[in-house]
C-alpha cells in the first residue's frame, strides 16, 4: 500500500516537472514563457525585415525564418554543451571548433560512399553519426586525461592549440586522401567534403543521393506530400526540405536541453558546481574531482561533435575546414556568456539572441537597407569612402564590411559583458542542484 503511494507521488512529481526547467515547475513555466516570447519577438523582427527587404513571396519569408531558426538551434545546442563544461564545471575549453570538426569529419569519413569524390567507408549514416559523436567524446577524454589538471588559462591555450592542430591536419594534403588497410579514406583536405544525403532527404526522395533537381522527380510518399504543401506556400523543393529538416532538428535540441537539465539537477551536477566553486572542498569531501572533470569534458565535446554533425548535414551538406576556425569557438562563448553561463535556460536564451541578433541580424538589416535606400556609390577603399556620408555608408554596408562590423560588434559585446554583466542575461538565476526539491521539507508518509 505504501509502495503504491510512493509510486503515485513519484508520478505526480514527474507531471509537475514536465520540462525539467532550471528549478521547480514554476521556474520551468516562466522559462517557457521567456523563451517563447523571445522566439516570437525574433520571428516578428525577421518577418518585418524580410517584408521590408526585397519581398519575394511568402516562401522567401519562410525561408529566411528557416535560416535564422537553423542557426539559433545550432547555437543553442553548442551553448548548452559548452555550458556543461564552462558553466557547470568551470572548464575553459577554447577548442570547441576542433571537437566539432572531429565529430563532423568522422561522421563524413564513416558514411561517405567509397566511390565518392572524397571516399569514405560507406557505412549507414546512423553509424556515421554515432561514430562521430563517439569520436568527439573520445578525443575530449584523451585531451582531458592529461590536460585537466592544468590551470584554467593553460587549459584554454592547450585546447585552442589542439583545435588548430586538428584543423591544420584535416586540411593538409596528407590527410586529404590516404589508404588504410586497402581502404581509401580522406578528409578532402582544403577542399569541401560532400556529405551523404541527410535523413530528411532519405525520407523524401527515392534517390536521395541524386542532385536535388533529379531527386525531386522521384519523391517518396512523404516527399509527394511535402512537395504539395510546398506548392501551397510557393516554396521551392529545397526550401521546403530545409524547413522540414530544421523543424525536425527541434527534437535533438529538446533532447540536449533535457539531458543537460537532468545532469544539472542531479547529484553529478551538484559535484560539478562544487568543483567550480572550490575544487579543494569537493576533494576534501571525497569527490574524485578528476573523474568528474574528465567525464564532463568528454561528454561536452561529444555533444559539440553531435551538434556539428546535425548542423552540417543540413541541405546540400558539405564540410569545409574553414568552418572550424577558432572564431567559431568564440561565437559559442559569446552565445553562452550572453545568456549567462551556469544556467541551461540562459544557454538557450543566449543561443537565440546571439544567432538571431548578432549573427544573422546584420545580414538581414543589410538587405533592408539595400532595398530601401539608394547606396549605389561603391567606394573601394576607406579613403574613397571618407569623402562623404553616403559613400562611407555604402562602404560600411558592403558584404565584406558587414561581416567585419559583425565581428567588431561581437568583440565589443564580449568586452561589455565581461566588464558590466559577467553573469549574462540570466546568469543570476541558478538551477537547483538536486533531483528532489530542496528548500521545503517533505512530510513523511504515515
Amino acid at each position: 500500500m505504501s509502495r503504491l503511494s510512493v509510486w503515485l507521488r513519484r508520478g505526480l512529481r514527474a507531471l509537475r516537472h514536465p520540462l525539467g526547467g532550471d528549478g521547480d515547475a514554476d521556474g520551468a513555466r516562466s522559462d517557457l514563457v521567456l523563451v517563447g516570447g523571445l522566439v516570437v519577438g525574433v520571428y516578428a523582427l525577421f518577418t518585418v525585415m524580410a517584408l521590408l527587404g526585397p519581398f519575394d513571396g511568402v516562401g522567401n519569408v519562410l525561408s529566411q525564418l528557416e535560416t535564422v531558426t537553423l542557426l539559433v538551434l545550432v547555437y543553442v545546442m553548442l551553448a548548452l554543451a559548452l555550458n556543461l563544461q564552462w558553466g557547470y564545471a568551470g572548464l575553459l575549453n577554447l577548442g570547441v571548433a576542433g571537437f566539432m570538426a572531429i565529430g563532423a569529419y568522422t561522421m563524413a569519413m564513416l558514411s561517405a560512399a567509397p566511390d565518392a569524390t572524397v571516399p569514405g567507408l560507406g557505412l549507414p549514416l546512423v553509424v556515421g553519426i554515432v561514430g562521430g559523436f563517439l569520436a568527439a567524446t573520445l578525443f575530449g577524454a584523451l585531451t582531458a586525461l592529461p590536460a585537466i589538471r592544468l590551470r584554467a588559462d593553460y587549459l584554454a591555450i592547450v585546447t585552442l592549440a589542439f583545435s588548430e592542430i586538428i584543423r591544420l591536419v584535416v586540411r593538409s594534403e596528407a590527410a586529404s586522401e590516404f589508404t588504410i588497410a586497402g581502404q581509401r579514406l580522406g578528409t578532402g583536405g582544403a577542399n569541401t567534403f560532400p556529405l551523404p544525403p541527410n535523413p530528411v532527404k532519405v525520407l523524401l526522395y527515392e534517390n536521395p543521393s541524386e542532385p536535388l533537381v533529379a531527386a525531386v522527380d522521384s519523391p517518396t510518399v512523404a516527399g509527394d506530400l511535402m512537395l504539395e504543401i510546398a506548392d501551397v506556400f510557393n516554396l521551392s523543393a529545397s526550401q521546403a526540405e530545409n524547413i522540414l529538416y530544421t523543424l525536425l532538428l527541434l527534437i535533438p535540441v529538446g533532447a540536449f536541453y533535457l539531458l543537460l537539465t537532468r545532469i544539472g539537477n542531479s547529484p553529478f551536477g551538484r559535484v560539478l558546481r562544487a568543483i567550480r566553486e572550490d575544487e579543494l572542498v569537493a576533494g576534501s569531501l571525497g569527490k574524485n574531482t578528476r573523474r568528474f572533470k574528465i567525464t564532463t569534458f568528454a561528454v561536452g565535446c561529444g555533444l559539440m561533435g553531435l551538434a556539428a554533425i546535425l548542423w552540417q548535414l543540413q541541405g546540400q551538406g558539405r564540410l569545409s575546414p574553414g568552418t572550424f576556425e577558432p572564431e567559431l569557438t568564440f561565437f559559442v562563448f559569446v552565445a553562452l556568456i550572453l545568456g549567462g553561463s551556469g544556467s541551461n535556460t540562459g544557454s538557450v536564451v543566449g543561443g537565440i539572441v546571439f544567432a538571431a541578433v548578432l549573427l544573422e541580424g546584420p545580414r538581414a538589416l543589410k538587405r533592408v537597407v539595400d532595398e530601401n535606400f539608394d547606396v549605389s556609390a561603391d567606394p573601394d577603399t576607406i579613403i574613397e569612402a571618407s569623402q562623404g556620408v553616403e559613400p562611407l555608408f555604402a562602404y560600411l554596408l558592403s558584404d565584406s564590411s558587414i561581416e567585419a562590423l559583425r565581428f567588431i560588434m561581437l568583440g565589443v559585446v564580449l568586452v561589455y559583458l565581461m566588464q558590466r554583466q559577467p553573469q549574462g542575461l540570466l546568469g543570476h538565476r541558478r538551477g537547483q542542484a538536486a533531483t528532489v526539491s530542496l528548500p521545503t521539507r517533505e512530510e513523511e508518509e504515515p
Partner: protein
Amino acid sequence: MAVRDNPGRVLSSLRVNLLPALLAVLGLVLLLDLGRRLVIGGLTLSALVRFLWTGLVRGMAIGLAGIGLSLTYSILGFANFAHGDYITVGAFAGWVTTFVVAGVGSVGLDLLVLVSSDASAGELGINVLSTPVAIAAGLVVAAGITALVTVALDRVVFRPMRDANGIALLIASVGVALALRYTLLILFSGSVRTLTTDVPTTAVGVGSGEVVFRAHDVTVVVLAGLLMLGTHLLLQYTKLGTAMRAMADNKELALVTGIPTERVVRTTWILGGALTGAAGFLIALQLGGMSTTLGWDRLLLVFAAVILGGVGSIYGAIVGGLIIGITIRLSLVWLPNELSIASAFVVLVFMLLVRPNGLLGGVETV
C-alpha cells in the same frame, strides 16, 4: 568503509612520470634520424643549415613579440589573446609609415596608406638597402603607435577590470582581439599586399650546396637582437625596471613596499606594446607581405614561446621563441610544409603537460 583503490590512479601517476621520459626518447630518435639522414644523404648539410637559419630568423621575431605578452601575463595575471592583433597593429602602422616616407609625392595617397587592395610595392622599390630611412621610420612608428594603442585599450578595457580574475580578462581580451582585427580589416581590406621588392641576397657555400642569406632576414635578427639587449639593460639598470621585476615576482609584496602599481602597469604596456609593434613590423619585413591576420595567425606561436620559456621571464620568451622558430623549420625534415606550424603547437601542448612552469623553471622573474 571499504578501501576503494582506484587502478586509474596508479596508471595516471605512472603516466605523469612516463611522459617526460617518452618525450626524451622521441627527441633522441628524431636526433638520431636527423644524423642518419645527413649521413645517407636524404638531407644535405646546406638544407639543415638553411632550416636552422630561417628558424633562428623566425624565432627572433616570435621571441621579440613574446616579451610583451610575457610581461603583461605575469604582471596583470592574464593571458592576453589580443596580443596577436597588437602585432598586426604594429605591422600596419609601421608599413604605412614606410610607404609614405618612401613614396610620398610619387604615387597616390590610397596606395601609400595601404588601403587599396591592389597596392603593390613594386613602384616604390622598398628594401632595406635602397630605402633604409623609410624602414627605420616604419620601425619607430610601429613601436610608438602600438604602445599607444595598447595603453588606450588598457584604459578602456582592462583597467576597469583590475580586480576581475584572469579568466574574465582573458575572455575580454578575446573580444578586444576580434574588434581590433576586424577594424583593421575595414580600414585596410583583407587582401594580402606585397611590401618589399628586390631584396638583396648573399649565397654562402655550405658543404656541397649553398645557403642563401636574405638581407631582410639578417636585418630582423640584428634589430630584434638589439631591441632585446636594450630591454635587458632597461630592466636591469633602471629603477622602473627593478619595480617591474618586483611586480612580476610578487605583486602583493610589491604593493606593500609601495611600488606605484598603475605606473608600473602603464610602463609595462608601453614597453611590451612597443616591442610587440616592432616585432610586427619586422615579421612583415621578413615575409615581404602582410594581411590583417598576420598577428592572429602567430598568436599561438607567441604563446608557445612564452609558456615554453616560463611566463614572466623575458629571457624565457626569447629562448622559447628560438625553440619554436627552429622547431617549425626543422620539422620540415619530416613533415610537409602545411603541417610545420602544427608541430609547434604539438610542442606547446606537450610542454604544458610536462612542465607547465616553463623550461627555465617555475620562478617568474623578468
